Each structure stands twice: as structure tokens, then as C-alpha cells.
């Protein structure tokens, strides 16, 4: 694997300009020596203390970074490189070293001379995927053994090995998956902060709050899409927005009206949200038509003077004639709750306001507008009819169903009868043919003779003879003691227990190896491509080797355990034989099939 020396900058944070120096790496450790000998940024670290590595996506003028993570969460060593190429060289080296330390070597194209189809082997693994595999290998020593044996032994490819363990990987992945985050359940409330010296106030906006504002106030969203950046810059837009918010909060209606008249963009924020109003209308249509809020208002608390708290806790004192917004806290809460419950449509990458606005616009589909009044009216009537119907006067609304098809059982028994008759007249094997010399009549005659002899002789013959009794007793005893011996302990366990420890381990290893190989062997049938063909050849070769090893174990076993060993080895060799036979058959078939190279 060798070593590597490269110029790099050590950085404490990604933004840090870094200390230029030389990074040297070999299989065990890496050292960093700064160019400036006075600098204290000098270190010598063992690779065993490194748990993983991360690298950034390089776009534009950002430097290429490689971060070596330490065992504990305390961070790691971050290096910046002049070019992506250098970084990638370094990264590959680190990946190999780490892989070796952790018992896994990530795919290296040079390691597979027998790889006939390059594209199949060169899988692009994400760092997370590699991490998961390493973790699984580390947790399961048996898996690690298999991996070492087959993948490092070039019998199976990395991807082939893991393909049969997808479920393990998926389990691991599922465990890691995080809950999707939605909107915050707190109301959006951007408060200004004043520096206390000037008359300026500052609003802090994050993309997340902007996203939430857009979701909750579709009119603002629409305005943003319309005005920015053609008419207003982004900061101008938000300035106006907060100005309007300020006016609403102070309830300075006169000032608000005046300003709205002078500035049409500002007026947008001051007006009632017409999109929301439209949605509300649609929702009201869906409400149970028998519900009449206005009629109920008399017994309701709505008219009580304490109702209608504004969002700042002050009492409602708005003159209801005003053109401007009359938002109450309950309306805001309702809208907010609806948006939060709806959740984020997709995982939008919140990078700038523009993308947020566009993503939201995309995710929102306009509901089909059926503006036809009579249509709506008709629908309403239908609804009323449905709501007011008296259920026990209605015919049961029939559900669609498919009739269960049960065949006439008679048909089945008839077919049975036919089969039975056919088998009666059918051919017989040799044993039965011996009896054919005797016709049915003769047989019955013989039986009748027997019965009549019974009547004549009565029960004269002795039923038990002493020598016979002894034989029977011996046989029964033997059978019982045999079954008892076998039932007393698990036969497999008993067999294994008699073997010396190392033979036992060896056999177990071979058994797991055989199972793995057979799984790959059978799963590659039918052989439809050259890749599969090559795989079968490789697996077959490995199986042949194991077969020879098994034979060797059998032959070299101590005489006292030879019988047990051969009993244990037998199922293994049988399973392998079945595979070899299958392969042979396929080859014969393909040679019969003619010119096709792989037989399929």
C-alpha cells in the first residue's frame, strides 16, 4: 500500500485559511509538518484512532476538504487541498488504510484482474453505505470471516457479497433514517431588535422562517413571486412586509390607509389575503350544510365582549368598517395549525429565498376551480339530501363485491373416482405382479378356508411360544433402547462434542462457507449473462477447493472419530454434489443446445 506525501493545509474549521504544510501518510499513521517551523500545528496520529473520513462536494471556489474523524465525537483533522484531484488521491488512500484497519477494503479496480465486465464491479459507494457495511462486519465476526475469505480471496465481488445481505443493510439504513422535520409549531413572530443608539430596527430572517411565512400567507408568497426581483429587491420586499406588519400591529388604521394608498406593493400586505379567503370559501362548502353558525350565534360566546383577542393580547377595538385586515388571533392560529399539520411537502434545500418560494409554488397545486354556480348549488343540495336522509328508510347501500367462486365438490369427487378407476386398471410394479397369479376368486376362497378353519379349530393353538416370546421381548427392548439413546440428547450436538476443538471449528467454518457459496451458486441460475457465467465459474472453483479440504479432513481424522466426522461431512458433500451435478447437467444441455456460448 506504501505511503503518500502531499502538500495540504491543516484547518481547524472549514472557514479557517489553514496552516500550509506537508501531509505524510503511511499504512499506520499520518503526520503533518507545517511549512513554517514556528507553527505549533504539528502532529503525528495513528490511523487506528481514526474512525472514518468525510469529504466535501467541491463546487466553485470552495477548497477541497478532507476530514479525518476521531474515535470519540471530539472532531477530527481537517485538511484543505489545492485541487480536487489531490484530495481524491488522499481520500482513496485513507479509505484503503481505514478499510484495512477495519477489515474491509473498498472496491479497488486493480484488485480484480478477473473482472470481465468492468461496469458491474465498479460500484459507486456512498460514504454512508461503506460505513454501514463496515459496521455490520465489525459487529458480526462470522460475517467478517466470510467476507475475508471470499471477497478478499477474489471469489465473490464486493457487490455480490452484499447483494445477498440487502436486508441486513436495509435494517441498518432504516435504523439510521431520521424523522422528517416539519414546520415549527410556534407561531412565526419576527420581532425587531433595536440597537438602542439609532432609530433603526433590525429583523432577523432565516430561510426557515421565510418558508413558513410563505406557507402560511399565500398572498405574501404570490407577491414575492410577482415583485422580486423585477420590481423590488429582496431586502426591499421584506422591508415593506415588515412595515405592513408594523402598521397592523400598531392598529394605526389611518396611517395604514394612507400608506396603502401611496404604495401599491405595501397595500398588498395590508389587504385581506384573498387566496386564503378563497380557500376558506371552499372549505365552508364542505361543511355540513345543516350547520348554521349565524343562527347559533345567539347562544354562542362569539358576541361576548371578551372574545376576539388580538395577537398581542390587547382587546379588539378595530373599527369594523376598515378596508384593512382584521386578523384575529384565532384566525392566525387556525391558519398556522393547518399549515403545520399539512407539513412540508418535500425536503427543500433551504439555501435562498428564491428557491424556497419556487419550491413552494411547485408543491402547491391549484385545486380545480369549479366556478359554475349551479354546479356548486347542485352539489350543496345533494349534500343536504344526504345529511338529512333518515337512514332506516333507505335501502342498504350495496357495496361492490365479487361473488366467491366455490366449485361444485361433486366435480372434484367425480374426478377422484375417475382417477381411482384409472389407477386400478393401470400398470403395476413387479411386486404386485407376483400376486397376479392369484385371481380374486381364488384369494377369497383361500380366505374363506381360513375362516372356516378358525371355526373348526376354535382357539386351540397356543398363542405364545417361549422361544418366540423371548425374541419379541428382545426386539422390543432393543428398539426402545435405541430410540431412547437417540432421544436423550441432540444427536448433532453429541457428534460435535466428540470431535477435537479445532476440527469442530474447521467443520463449522466450512459449513458456513459452503452455505454462502451455494447461495451464490443457485442464485446465479439460469445463467443469462457473461457476468453470471464468470461468477459461477469462480464459485465452482471455490467449492471444489472446499470439497478437497473436506475430503482431507475426512481422511486425516483420528480413527476413533472418523465415523463421526464422515457423518458430519456427508450432508456438506451431498449439498456440493447436488450443485456440481446441476452444473454438469446445464453444461450438457448447453452443449446439446448448440452454438450458444453460455447455453442460454
Amino acid at each position, binding site marked *: 500500500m506504501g505511503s503518500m506525501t502531499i502538500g495540504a493545509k491543516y484547518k481547524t474549521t472549514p472557514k479557517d485559511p489553514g496552516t500550509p504544510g506537508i501531509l505524510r501518510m503511511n499504512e499506520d499513521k499520518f503526520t503533518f509538518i507545517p511549512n513554517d517551523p514556528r507553527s505549533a500545528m504539528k502532529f503525528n496520529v495513528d490511523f487506528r484512532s481514526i474512525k472514518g473520513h468525510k469529504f466535501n462536494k467541491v463546487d466553485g471556489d470552495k477548497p477541497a476538504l478532507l476530514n479525518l474523524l476521531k474515535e470519540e465525537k471530539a472532531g477530527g483533522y481537517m485538511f484543505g487541498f489545492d485541487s480536487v484531484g489531490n484530495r481524491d488521491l488522499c481520500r482513496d488512500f485513507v479509505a484503503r488504510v481505514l478499510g484495512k484497519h477495519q477489515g474491509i477494503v473498498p472496491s479497488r479496480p486493480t484488485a480484480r484482474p478477473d473482472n470481465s465486465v468492468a461496469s458491474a464491479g465498479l460500484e459507486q459507494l456512498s460514504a454512508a453505505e461503506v460505513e454501514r457495511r463496515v459496521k455490520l462486519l465489525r459487529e458480526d465476526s462470522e460475517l467478517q470471516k466470510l467476507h475475508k475469505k471470499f471477497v478478499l480471496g477474489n471469489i465473490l465481488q464486493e457487490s455480490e457479497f452484499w447483494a445477498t445481505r440487502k436486508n441486513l443493510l436495509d435494517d441498518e439504513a432504516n435504523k439510521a433514517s431520521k424523522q422528517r422535520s416539519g414546520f415549527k409549531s410556534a407561531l412565526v413572530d419576527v420581532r425587531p431588535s433595536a440597537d438602542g443608539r439609532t432609530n433603526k430596527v433590525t429583523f432577523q430572517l432565516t430561510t426557515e422562517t421565510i418558508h413558513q411565512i410563505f406557507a402560511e400567507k399565500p398572498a405574501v408568497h404570490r407577491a414575492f413571486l410577482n415583485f422580486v426581483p423585477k420590481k423590488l429587491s429582496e431586502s426591499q420586499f421584506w422591508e415593506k412586509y415588515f412595515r405592513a406588519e408594523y402598521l397592523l400591529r400598531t392598529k394605526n388604521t389611518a396611517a395604514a390607509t394612507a400608506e396603502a394608498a401611496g404604495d401599491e406593493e405595501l397595500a398588498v400586505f395590508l389587504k385581506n389575503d384573498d387566496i386564503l379567503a378563497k380557500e376558506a370559501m371552499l372549505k365552508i362548502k364542505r361543511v355540513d350544510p345543516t350547520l348554521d353558525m349565524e343562527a347559533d350565534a345567539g347562544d354562542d360566546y362569539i358576541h361576548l365582549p371578551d372574545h376576539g383577542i388580538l395577537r398581542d393580547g390587547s382587546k379588539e377595538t378595530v373599527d369594523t368598517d376598515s378596508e384593512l385586515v382584521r386578523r384575529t388571533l384565532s384566525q392566525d392560529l387556525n391558519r398556522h395549525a393547518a399549515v403545520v399539520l399539512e407539513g412540508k411537502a418535500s425536503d427543500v434545500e433551504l439555501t435562498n429565498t428564491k428557491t424556497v418560494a419556487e419550491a413552494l409554488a411547485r408543491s402547491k397545486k391549484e385545486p380545480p376551480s369549479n366556478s359554475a354556480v349551479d354546479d356548486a348549488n347542485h352539489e350543496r343540495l345533494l349534500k343536504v339530501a344526504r345529511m338529512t336522509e333518515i337512514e332506516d328508510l333507505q335501502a342498504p347501500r350495496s357495496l361492490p363485491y365479487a361473488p366467491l367462486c366455490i366449485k361444485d365438490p361433486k366435480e372434484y369427487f367425480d374426478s377422484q373416482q375417475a382417477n381411482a378407476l384409472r389407477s386400478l386398471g393401470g400398470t*403395476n410394479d413387479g411386486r404386485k405382479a407376483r400376486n397376479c397369479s392369484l385371481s380374486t376368486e381364488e384369494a*377369497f376362497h383361500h380366505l374363506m378356508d381360513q375362516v372356516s378353519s378358525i371355526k373348526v379349530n376354535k382357539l386351540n393353538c397356543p398363542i405364545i411360544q417361549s422361544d418366540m416370546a423371548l425374541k419379541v421381548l428382545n426386539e422390543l427392548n432393543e428398539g426402545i433402547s435405541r430410540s431412547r439413546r437417540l432421544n436423550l440428547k441432540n444427536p448433532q450436538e453429541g457428534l460435535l462434542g466428540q470431535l477435537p476443538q479445532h476440527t469442530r471449528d474447521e467443520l463449522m467454518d466450512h459449513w458456513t462457507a459452503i452455505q454462502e457459496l451455494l447461495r451464490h451458486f443457485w442464485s446465479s441460475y439460469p445463467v443469462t449473462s457473461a457476468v453470471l457465467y464468470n461468477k459461477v465459474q469462480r464459485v465452482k472453483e471455490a467449492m471444489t477447493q472446499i470439497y478437497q479440504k473436506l475430503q482431507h479432513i475426512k481422511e486425516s481424522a483420528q480413527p476413533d472419530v472418523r465415523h463421526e466426522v464422515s457423518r458430519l461431512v456427508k450432508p456438506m458433500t451431498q449439498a456440493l454434489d447436488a450443485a456440481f451435478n446441476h452444473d454438469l447437467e446445464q453444461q450438457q444441455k448447453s452443449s446439446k443446445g448448440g452454438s450458444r456460448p453460455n447455453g442460454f
Partner: protein
Amino acid sequence: MTSAHSKLYSDDVSLVVVLVDTNPIFWATAALPFADFFAHLIHFVNSILLLNHLNRVVIIAAGVSSCAYIFDSSDAGPASGVGVSDTFDKASRKVEEFIAQEARATASNGSVAPANTSSLLSGALSLALCYIQRIFRSGTRHPQPRILCLQGSPDGPEQYVAVMNSIFSAQRSVVPIDSCIVGTQDSAFLQQASYITGGVYLKPQELNGLFQYLAAVFATDLHSRAFLRLPKTLGVDFRASCFCHKKTIDMGYVCSVCLSIFCKNQRKCSTCGSEFSRVMPDLNSMPDQSK
């Protein structure tokens, strides 16, 4: 159906239903003459009746074309008592009638070819189970029922479904099926029957000592069995017969709807009518590791 589980059993009272194979073609070539076999059987039946005065024994004959009750110990009535000669007279008379009737039926029917060597095990099992159900429904305390099959002729694969159904209904009503093979071949049906219902399967080597086997292994009541070490079957032949040709098969196709078994790929299940639209791969090219 009244569930057998709710029944009150008398611990040590047995109801033994003995199924006797009366296949003429088997007995014509059997090592043990039927007359001797019959003597062993009668002694065994009497032994059971003597073990407990409440014990009941029923003998059912399974022929090639029909089955019949040959003997029922409850017919005698308590007054007449049980004696070997009494049992013997009644049973032998009934057997003679049954065999004569079988012979007539076979002769007149003509459909039973001489090669058909299997007896109606399924029919006999059904009769036995019906009898046991009748006992279950009368009175409050019941003898513990069990079935003993004395079979000589080979299995009839065409009875597979019927036999399996009987076995499962026996399992459901907690009736063990014991089997004693007096022929030369092991019976896969009875192996499965004994295995599933928790009975004893035995194939004696010395048929001349049949009574001893019967008395040693099959005479004890179910309660006492828990304390005895009885012979255990080691290898049970679990192979099934296909529904289409009644062949015993190692590997086959199973209907995904009704679990019917077929030896060949079918377009449509002949039992439940389900259609299998998906094209199946050739059986030979499928991995068959489950050998």
C-alpha cells in the same frame, strides 16, 4: 360439532377401535395365516376387555370394496359377561359373513381387478371416527378412545386425501391412531397418522408373536402410556400423493389457494378452480436444495 376438549374422560377406561385388514390378496400370500392372526386378535381383544370391566372394543373390517363392524363388546350386555369363546364365536361369525359378502360384491361388480391390493383404510377410519363421535355424544363421562390399525396390504395412494382428512379429524378430536403393520411394507399413511395423532407405530419382525407385541405395546390405556416407554418411530415418510395421478411424489407443485398437490404444472387447480396464469419455470432448472 361438540368439541372433544370439553369432554369428561374416565382416566382408565378405554374405547379401542381395531381396524382389521381383510384384504384377501394380502392374506393369500401373508407369512402369518389369517386363522392364526385372528386368534391373536381375539386374545388381544379379550385382554383389553379384562383390563377394565368398562373397557369397550370395536372391531371394524376393512375389505377391498367395503367396510363393516365385526364386533362390538357393548352388544353383549353386562349380563352375559365376557368370555374368550363368546367373543370368538360372535367375531368369527361376523367375519365369515363379511368376507362372503365381499366375495359376492367383488364377483358381481367385476371392477376390482386382482391387482388392486389396497384395502379401504379411509373408509374404516371414517367408520371408527363416527363410532367414537357417537360415544362422545352419549352420556357424560367417556372412555378414552383410540384407534388401532392392523394393516397388511400396501397403501392405496388414491385414498390419500380421504385418509389425510380422517387423520386430521382424529387429531382434532384427540384420538390417537396406533398402527401395527402385519405386512412386509411400511405404510406411509399410518406412519403419518400415528405421528400426527400421537399414536404408536410398530412394524413387528416376528409375526408369530403378534399377540405379545399387541399386549406389550398397544394394550395399555392412554393414561398409563404417559409412564411407559413405548417404541418410537424414527423415520416418518412424509411424502404426499399428488392429486392428479395419485402418485407418491418427492417434489411437486402446490396450489397457492387450496394447497392441493400436483406432480405436474397445471394451468388450473382441479380442486378449487384457481387459474395459474404465471408461467412457471421448468422444475429442473429450479434450485432444489431441499433434498
